[in-house]
């Protein structure tokens, strides 16, 4: 192997990009080593520098300072040799969508110089491993998200590399495919003695790695075995039972606002609590009268703790959002009945029915391509339905989409901000787009700046803001006209866990004030934050109910206490079995 026996070594590596007039420091003084023969996880939110690090290791970028050595070769000087020895799967793997599975494999076999005599055996092995065997003649563009990802991996593995770099291979992939991808990675490490560096934004995947490198804003926060990370938090983590007269969200809000609490987050049926110091919980007055039990620290606790240490202060803000509009509960604000959307002969959404009530947080959970965004666009009146009934705020969207839109706030995955406009200009634009003027406009802008803590950043161009700020600004823009229905399309993907917690805190406050919230997500644990949710796959709703109900349906002898992910996997497998029958 390489230098000092390591597969990858970074020594004081800096990397800057200039985006227009500004410079972005993607990596700052990064020192790290990746051990051979194990899976090393590279974990951090978007913008942490994970992709830059991967590309440097693949010889696709040149470091500004420092040295990158891969398998004993200089990644800059001997880029071509490095590229002949490693496998690299970029975030959006370059599958040729108008080529079939087999043709994609052939191309990469040609490019990697796999001798024709060895191909048949290797293909058979890869097809078996990925389960793509029956689909070799299908065009890559017609595969599901999970299958595409597996084909991408197969193409990368067509010549067994010594080192495998995987850039966020599991993002947006359904949990079944995610589990399969991990199984493949483990097999490669075990059978082919491959070294793997895998980046992910899912913190729960840290525990699946032999070693973890935690990154944040271009720097390595910590590096070690995942189990070791949280050890110092022992005795500070508890699971608090929800008392019968309260709700999970209310308890979480109450706990998280207390000094001395690092983290309070809904986990399954209880609230997980992380304390700032190891104190006897019996002396902590907020826990009086509550049932709690100590639990093992996990990786995410450590991440939150180290982020809190970095940005001491901040967080834990009570958001006064709207004057309370509580009232007639039980009224269905959104009614969807047998909704359909066809594209040609493909059903993106098939027979979807659900109701959302005033002040409810309703989640649509599913992988990329499950039909969540299509459903959303129809609800916002952006896409006409092919069939079924659709009423939002009592208005039939087929007749009066514009009237309904006045009462809807929409925040999209990409945040839809004008990057070159400043924070204030973005707010002004959205205020005028919603027809606010004069005093009211001024009031709303002042409200947005204050509530979303954007006051210091008024003049900054929104493209220059950190992701967490962008997300806040986007939410502020969607709320300018005080809508009573809020649509959030993947609002938290890629932001760091602190920003995610803060975001949900605001959403809870909005829901308390009577705003109806419809949210899509592919983070399984976020489903727990919803009052009710629908699990979607291939355009259909597989299960609908409260998180407890959805999980209860998946309870079995093997999994007496299923997580949302277990429930999701059980539902998909059950659905596949029914389809096959």
């Amino acid at each position, binding site marked *: 192997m390489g230098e000092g026996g390591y597969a990858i070594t970074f020594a004081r590596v800096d990397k800057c990009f200039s985006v227009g007039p500004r410079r972005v420091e993607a990596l700052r003084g990064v020192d790290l080593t990746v051990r051979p023969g194990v899976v090393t996880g590279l974990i951090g939110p978007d913008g942490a520098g994970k992709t830059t690090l991967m590309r440097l290791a693949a*010889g*696709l970028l040149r470091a500004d300072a420092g040295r990158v050595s891969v398998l004993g070769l200089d990644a800059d000087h001997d*880029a071509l040799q490095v590229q002949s020895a490693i496998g690299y799967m970029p975030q*959006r793997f370059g599958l040729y969508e*108008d*080529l079939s599975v087999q043709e994609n494999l052939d191309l990469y076999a040609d*490019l990697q110089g796999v001798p024709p005599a060895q191909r048949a055996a290797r293909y058979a092995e890869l097809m078996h491993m990925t389960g793509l065997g029956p689909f070799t003649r299908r065009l890559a563009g017609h595969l599901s998200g999970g299958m595409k990802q597996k084909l991408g991996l197969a193409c990368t593995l067509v010549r067994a590399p010594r080192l495998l770099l995987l850039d966020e291979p599991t993002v947006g992939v359904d949990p079944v495919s995610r589990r399969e991808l991990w199984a493949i990675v483990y097999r490669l490490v075990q059978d082919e003695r491959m070294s793997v560096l895998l980046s992910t934004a899912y913190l729960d995947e840290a525990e699946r790695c032999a070693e973890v490198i935690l990154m944040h804003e271009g720097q390595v926060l910590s590096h070690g075995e995942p189990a070791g990370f949280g050890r110092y938090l022992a005795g500070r983590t508890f699971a608090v039972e929800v008392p019968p007269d309260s709700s999970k969200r209310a308890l979480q809000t109450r706990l998280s606002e207390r000094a001395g609490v690092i983290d309070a987050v809904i986990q399954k049926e209880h609230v997980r609590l992380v304390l700032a110091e190891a104190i006897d919980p019996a002396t902590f007055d907020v826990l009086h009268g509550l049932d709690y039990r100590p639990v093992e620290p996990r990786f995410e606790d450590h991440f939150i703790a180290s982020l809190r240490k970095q940005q001491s202060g901040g967080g834990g803000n009570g958001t006064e959002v709207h004057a309370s509009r509580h009232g007639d509960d039980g009224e269905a604000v959104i009614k969807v009945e047998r909704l359909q959307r066809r594209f040609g002969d493909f059903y993106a959404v098939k027979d979807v029915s659900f109701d959302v009530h005033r002040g409810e947080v309703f989640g649509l959970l599913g992988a990329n391509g499950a039909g969540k965004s299509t459903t959303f666009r129809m609800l916002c009146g952006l896409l006409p339905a092919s069939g079924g009934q659709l009423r939002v705020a009592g208005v039939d969207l087929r007749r009066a989409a514009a009237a309904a839109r006045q009462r809807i706030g929409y925040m999209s995955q990409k945040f839809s901000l004008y990057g070159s406009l400043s924070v204030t200009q973005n707010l002004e634009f959205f205020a005028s787009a919603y027809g606010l003027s004069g005093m009211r406009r001024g009031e709303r802008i002042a409200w947005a700046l204050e509530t979303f803590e954007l006051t210091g950043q008024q003049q900054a161009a929104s493209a220059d803001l950190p992701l967490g700020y962008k997300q806040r600004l986007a939410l502020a823009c969607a709320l300018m006209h005080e809508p009573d229905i809020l649509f959030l399309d993947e609002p938290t993907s890629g932001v760091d866990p602190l920003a995610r917690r803060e975001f949900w805190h605001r959403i809870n406050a909005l829901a308390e004030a009577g705003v109806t919230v419809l949210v899509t997500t592919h983070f399984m644990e976020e489903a727990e934050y919803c009052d009710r949710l629908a699990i979607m796959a291939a355009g259909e709703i597989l299960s609908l109910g409260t998180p407890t109900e959805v999980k209860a349906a998946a309870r079995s002898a093997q999994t007496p206490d299923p997580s949302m992910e277990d429930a999701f996997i059980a539902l998909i497998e059950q659905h596949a079995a029914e389809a096959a029958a």
Partner: protein
Amino acid sequence: MSASPNSRGGAAMRLRGLVRKEFFQILRDPSSIAIAFLMPVVLLLVFGYGVSLDADHIPIAVVAEQPSGDTAAFVASMRHNRYFSLTEVGDMRAAETAMMAGRVNGIIHLRADFGRRLRSTDGAPIQVIVNGVDANTGRIISGYVQGAWGQWLQEVARARGEQLNTPVDLEPRVWFNSELRSRNFLVPGLIAIIMTLIGAMLTALVMAREWERGTMEALMVTPVAIRELLLGKLIPYFVLGMGGMALSVAMALFLFHVPLRGSLWLLTIASALFLLVALAMGLLISIIAKNQFVAGQVALVVTFLPAFILSGFLFDIDSMPAVVQLLTHVIAARYFVAILQTIFMAGNVWPVILSNAFALLVMALLFFAVVRRKARKRLE
């Protein structure tokens, strides 16, 4: 188990893989086929039939102030030719109104003393007023009317058994395009434009598509060398471009009946040379523009439009201002238009063809050198 990145067999295998992939994509994605084969057909039909620089049934008003046998005879002779379609109008006022309204493009005014002046030597008894808004048509009308008038005078004289006393008898002979069909020179020029489009636009777009879809990043981490990547694009689109060329030439010969006086193999070689320049321009654009929209815009502005305006295909280079004339030397299409018009209409005129081909060769080498220098197997 794997071939080393520098071995010859490995390179051939990689190149073959890339070329095959590109052909699959071309076959399955209708947009490349459309640019290569549909675009030439549409452009040739539009230009071949729609644009004409010849006079053909131009509406003209005739005002005879005092109709007589002489005026009737002249009008009758004008009616015989296909260049004009005449309308007789009672007086000048009506004719002027018709011209204002754009119903006619010119007025032929025959004065009251038409018969008398015709027999004297006082000068022309006719007045021609031309709508000069469209300067080109205006010139064509005045030229044709003059010609028609001269011809009629001669006929009149001959009928009387007299010799018309004109000082010089001009007898023009037109070489190469003896019928003066503008189609004969437009269609070959158009082929140069089409080839620019196929070569530069298509290559720039398909490279940008690879960047956009993230396939380029995956290609870059394979042991493929940058020259193999470039060749992998060059070969398929060269073939496609020559296919489009063959189609255009076939249409020129069999649909528009443009003569081909030079040799076909010379035409093929010159086209191949020009196609290489166009492809190199496309590759160069793709190094700068990494999304399809920008690539399309850049290709349009730096290759297609200059070729259209400055190549001499529509507008004569010699009548451009000196600065612009100088500028046309960097437009590759200029040389190809010259070669095409020569091969189609004049034949294998070696001095013209060789000098222009040499210019194309220099441009091809230059562009490829820049592409090779600028193309990097890196993402920045």
